[in-house]
């Protein structure tokens, strides 16, 4: 795959690369979004000692396809009195930033659509659109639950964007670059070269990873931080009025965001496509690490109950932000002293 795309793109680089990116990322995201739902359901079932989906296909493997077919066949209802344009645009606005951001994720050494030197910046620039999309969806729905959910999403994401960016600034200081491929290359060697274990640069590196991961959970509105769609109080949150594929796209975007968050965590902290033993590096390791993180997302969801809203904000403002600020200062001090 890598060598093929390399060879072809050497012959006829730009348009082909674009087509490969669009086809590759679309299918990757589509399949992942569909099958992460299956993973979620199977995982939930296993954590509760149930069998999960079993009826459609072997071990329920065709369930996502059946779900997608059902969603696509549903009527798209636009309720009376909504802002029609925003209502229609919001799901797309949530989906497209993820697709854009995945352009800079290095899946393998040469397996990235774009190797730009501000990749990290680009991901965070696009990542914030996602919040706006949920907010627009909730706002334009003209539904009390959706609007409450939109307000929650905004305050939650403002609260968690800060520690996340502080952590990312720490990482940029450690690595000295915003090029994701180069960040991965710097972590070459065995697993103790991964950023999460580089305690000689900053003894709090594992904590940094945990903060990043927690913020990622909150940014993607995953349990235990899924205040935006707390179904016991807000029906389906911002998605309440959506039906058919409008809801489906929101759903896909949610899982794609998890995918992106886990991919980013893998790149920043777990050495991307680097093998843990220093040999046989490649896209395989990237996928293993990413799917382990995604499994952890499911694991966390089915372990912890939903926090209350003040608990969510307390965690961010009282713990995550001070700790990440402290790691930032510590890292800069250690870089100044020892380098």
């Amino acid at each position, binding site marked *: 795959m890598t060598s093929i795309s390399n060879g072809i793109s050497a012959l006829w680089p730009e348009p082909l690369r674009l087509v490969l990116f669009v086809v590759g990322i679309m299918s990757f995201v589509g399949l992942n979004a569909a099958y992460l739902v299956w993973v979620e359901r199977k*995982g939930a*079932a*296993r*954590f*509760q*000692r*149930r*069998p999960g989906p*079993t009826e459609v296909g072997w071990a329920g493997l065709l369930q996502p396809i059946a779900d997608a077919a059902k969603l696509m066949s549903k009527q798209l209802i636009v309720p009376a009195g909504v802002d029609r344009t925003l209502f229609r645009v919001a799901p797309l606005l949530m989906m497209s930033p993820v697709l854009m951001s995945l352009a800079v994720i290095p899946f393998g050494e040469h397996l990235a659509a774009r190797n730009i030197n501000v990749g990290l910046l680009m991901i965070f620039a696009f990542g914030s659109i996602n919040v706006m999309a949920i907010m627009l969806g909730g706002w334009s729905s003209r539904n009390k639950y959706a609007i409450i959910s939109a307000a929650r999403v905004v305050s939650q994401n403002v609260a968690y964007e800060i520690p996340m960016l502080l952590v990312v600034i720490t990482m940029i200081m450690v690595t000295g670059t915003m090029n994701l491929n180069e960040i991965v290359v710097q972590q070459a060697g065995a697993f103790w070269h991964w950023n999460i274990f580089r305690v000689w640069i900053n003894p709090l590196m594992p904590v940094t990873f945990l903060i990043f991961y927690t913020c990622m959970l909150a940014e993607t509105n995953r349990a235990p931080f899924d205040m935006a769609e707390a179904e016991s109080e807000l029906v389906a949150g911002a998605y309440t009025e959506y039906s058919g594929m409008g809801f489906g796209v929101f759903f896909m975007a949610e899982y794609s965001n998890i995918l992106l968050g886990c991919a980013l965590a893998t790149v920043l902290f777990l050495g991307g496509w680097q093998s843990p033993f220093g040999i046989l590096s490649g896209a395989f390791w990237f996928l293993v690490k990413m799917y382990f993180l995604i499994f952890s997302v499911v*694991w*966390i969801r*089915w*372990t*912890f109950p939903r926090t209350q809203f003040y608990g969510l904000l307390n965690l961010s403002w009282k*713990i995550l932000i001070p700790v990440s600020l402290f790691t930032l200062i510590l890292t800069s001090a250690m870089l100044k002293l020892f380098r």
Partner: protein
Amino acid sequence: MKNSLKEIATGFNSLLTGMRITLGQFFKPSVTVQYPHESLKMPERFRGHIELVRDPETGKALCFACKLCERACPSDCITVDGAKLDGAKKKSVTHYMLDFTKCSLCGSCVEACRDGAIRYSHEYNLASTNKEDYIMDLFKRLETERIEAGGVAQAAPSANPVVGQGTPPAGSPGVPPGAAPAADAPGKTCAAEPPKAEQPSAPNSQPSAAPK
């Protein structure tokens, strides 16, 4: 400062404990019983609707139609009839109807029965859209089962999977219902009934409530 750090540490530790517990559950086998495909065996003392107990020697019903159960039933859902067959010391049951639509499973009939001739079945797949399925001819069911288990041994006994808990009838393949029951228990004086020679024909032909 120290306290809050400690709080963070204990909080984080408790989170890890929780995750360890759920991961432990993740690898344990599933406890689900996929009901229509598989079902649980009922415990020994499960109290389903009543059924007649057969005599292990003859394979026929132990019941001799003393009607104690009929009288004990508060909802009036049991109808028993018996007849004194040729050469028998006691009467034997010829007709045992249970109207399960009225039965409240109180168990008074089983308590009232002095010879252990009725017992709770372990049948629980009783859902039906048909009221007639709940008017159960227990005697006919017993006889059908006996004939199927004994006489037509080659034929597949699939038609009647309902009362699966009874002991298999021990003897006398193909013995007609009129044969001597040969019970030598101390005879009880029962209320005299006009003997009925032939089998009663029940309104419902099939034993009911087989899970579809």
